[in-house]
């Protein structure tokens, strides 16, 4: 009744190829965007930005990146944390070396640097697959973190080994540093999320995305029909690392402001992002968002309910948090192995047929 194609007539190829073929879909997305742009910035404060929106947006970019590699191209990666670190350190070095450079360009350049590193560590994927590739990317995780901690050049020889984001502006508004307002930081991240999600959506439904999926579904068959595994796999690594690098740069510059590499970009980051795309849904743009929301918001929500509302001891709440999040992950994986995005797809199917299911 509300959500269906019937009655919508497409009179041109461009319309037939639009991102959201169903009118209701378009309306929902535009409405979300309007809320994100025109409502949230007027309600946001330091807590909402720091605890909810910034981590959600930044992790969403990382999840999009990993989803391109793992969900669309089928190459399992456990190196997300290290690639985020590459983005963060690239961002730091560029910020310090070129103080005049616009932050948007700095973040994009960090993504480019990470894409380069990602391609290098993607080379083994041409020879090895599955678990073995996961182990190779795991090596990247440990090697890169060790490197950033060991070689002083990366952190400009600071005594603590930490990197600190200096204050930088975009169009006269502080984006990094302690003086940056939550509104500016939020809108800056939202801008990147919007652009990158758009790019990801269109990449995945075009030729490149289809060749990724062909490799994922059966690499030998894909090769026989003319998909070049070398370029396909390496573009997946490059694009995925670009996204992850951007998220790492934002994570360091805009969200945290100071980073200690062993603590912030350790193996647990790789796992969190991997959980996000598994729970959200492999091979789904929407799934990346819903997975990021699930992993970021649920602990905050639980903490606010258990400690803030029920006044429980903080340690018990924290332990319960682990248990509840862990249990929910298991329940979701058993009840819906294709992730939360699949639930949304099922709902869509039902809505299309409603009220005459068969």
């Amino acid at each position, binding site marked *: 009744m509300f959500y269906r194609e019937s009655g919508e007539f497409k009179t041109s190829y461009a319309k037939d190829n639009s991102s959201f073929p169903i009118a209701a879909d378009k309306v929902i997305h535009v409405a979300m965007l309007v809320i994100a742009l025109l409502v949230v910035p007027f309600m946001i404060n330091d807590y909402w930005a720091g605890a909810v929106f910034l981590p959600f947006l930044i992790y969403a970019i990382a999840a999009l990146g990993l989803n391109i590699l793992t969900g669309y191209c089928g190459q399992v990666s456990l190196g997300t944390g290290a690639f985020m670190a590459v983005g963060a350190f690239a961002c730091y070095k560029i910020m310090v070396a070129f103080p005049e450079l616009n932050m948007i360009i700095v973040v994009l350049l960090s993504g480019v640097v990470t894409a380069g590193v990602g391609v290098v560590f993607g080379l083994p994927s041409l020879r090895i697959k599955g678990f073995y590739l996961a182990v190779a990317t795991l090596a990247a995780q440990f090697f890169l973190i060790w490197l950033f901690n060991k070689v002083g050049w990366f952190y400009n020889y600071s005594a603590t080994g*930490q990197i600190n984001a200096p204050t930088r502006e975009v169009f006269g508004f502080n984006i990094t540093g302690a003086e940056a307002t939550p509104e500016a930081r939020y809108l800056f991240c939202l801008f990147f999320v919007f652009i990158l999600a758009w790019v990801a959506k269109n990449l995945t439904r075009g030729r490149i995305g289809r060749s990724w999926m062909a490799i994922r579904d059966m690499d030998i068959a894909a090769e026989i029909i003319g998909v070049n595994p070398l370029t396909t796999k390496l573009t997946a690594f490059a694009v995925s690392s670009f996204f992850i690098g951007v998220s790492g740069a934002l994570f360091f510059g805009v969200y945290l402001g100071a980073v200690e590499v062993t603590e912030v970009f350790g193996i647990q980051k790789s796992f969190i992002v991997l959980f996000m795309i598994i729970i959200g849904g492999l091979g789904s743009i929407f799934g990346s968002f819903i997975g990021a929301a699930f992993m970021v918001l649920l602990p905050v929500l639980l903490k606010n309910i258990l400690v803030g509302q029920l006044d429980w001891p903080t340690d018990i709440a924290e332990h319960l948090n682990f248990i509840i999040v862990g249990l929910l992950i298991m329940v979701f994986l058993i009840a819906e192995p294709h992730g939360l995005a699949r639930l949304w797809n099922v709902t869509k199917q039902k809505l299309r047929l409603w009220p005459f299911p068969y």
Partner: protein
Amino acid sequence: MNLKKLAIAAAVTVTAAAPALAELVVPSLTYRTGPYAANGIPWADGFSDYMTLINERDGGVGGEKIRIIECETAYNTEKGVECYEAIKGEGALVFHPRSTGITYQLIPKITADNIPIHTPGLGRTSAKNGEVFNWVFNYPTNYWDGASGAITHLLNLNDKDIKGKKVTLLYHNSAYGKEPIRTLELLAKKHGFALSTLAVDHPGQEQKSQWLQIRRDRPDYVLMWGWGIMNQVAIQEAANIRYPMENFIGVWWSGSENDVMPAAEKANGYKSLAFFAVNDDFPIYNDIKKFVVDAGKAAGAGNMVGDRLYNAGIMEAMLTVEAIKNAQKIHGTKKINASMMRDGMEALKVDNALMKSLGMENFLPEFEVSCQNHGGNGIVNMSQWDAAAGKWSIIDANIQSDQDIIQPLVDQDSMAFAKESGVTPSCVN
């Protein structure tokens, strides 16, 4: 679904953030979970129990009750920042992050928000320069004093000559563990000992290769900047390679009962720096027992009372309460805010007469805070573990750290920070 979740979170936080008025709000960032919990729990308990004692026995400070807001960080900087953002709106007077990593993260934020931060014996050492770090206090002592104090103790043992000795620093591979390296390097040059450093990665459960290295190098002394599970593992590993315990010296955060107990009698003779009291024979403990423990109001499980790190909590709480008293006196009002609290902290003077009146004689070294000196006078003690008696005792008291080395370092590092972040060194008001 996404929006619905947000809406629920919104409703929850809005109702949760209703401010309670006319109270002295003191946040306590704790870590009762994770690999650092063994050290975090007694510390948090001591802090809460002292505040409970002040509320129960004295009816608060100047008639105003203290309200503690605990927030669990698990020693993780991201969670620490989230805690800070969540609590700062509630009228927090002073933050106690209890983590050097979180401290580094918070220093720019608290400076922008004008809320003081207190990091006794931890955090950024160069914050001792109060003209640059107006809102950061690290009295009564800091890591560079600790590093120098340990070397002075070694000098005392060796007739003031440790030329050619080999000293190894085993450190937590983080901002915390790296703090003493620069001081030790300069001291090595000055006294002619050979320094080598070995890093242990978070969380510190895996140290086989480091101890193999120590076994091969046979250093004369091993210093340790460890925290959490790293301490217990290191002491156990040292016992396994039969390293002489009396040559193994930890910083004050590597010297609680929880750290030495797992190695049982093999840990006998292990040394650790100290600046707050190492045992519980103080009259204040009678009051804590009477008003807090026996009244069933003890924090946590209540089984940490008297632990050495419980004293760290007491120390922190006592210094906070005295600073609140100061602030109330200076500004003539009971209801102080964060910037009044800062004035109270900057005017703090702790001497033995004061500590005696609180039932804590000789609990801490005496010190006086000023705008130029936020970090105390650099007095530390050396303590040793007696496994048979199951207690710590001070073996070398009132060691004066080498200010000829430390003061220039403090100036250099703090001025570098000032330049980096565009701060003009000056006192507030």
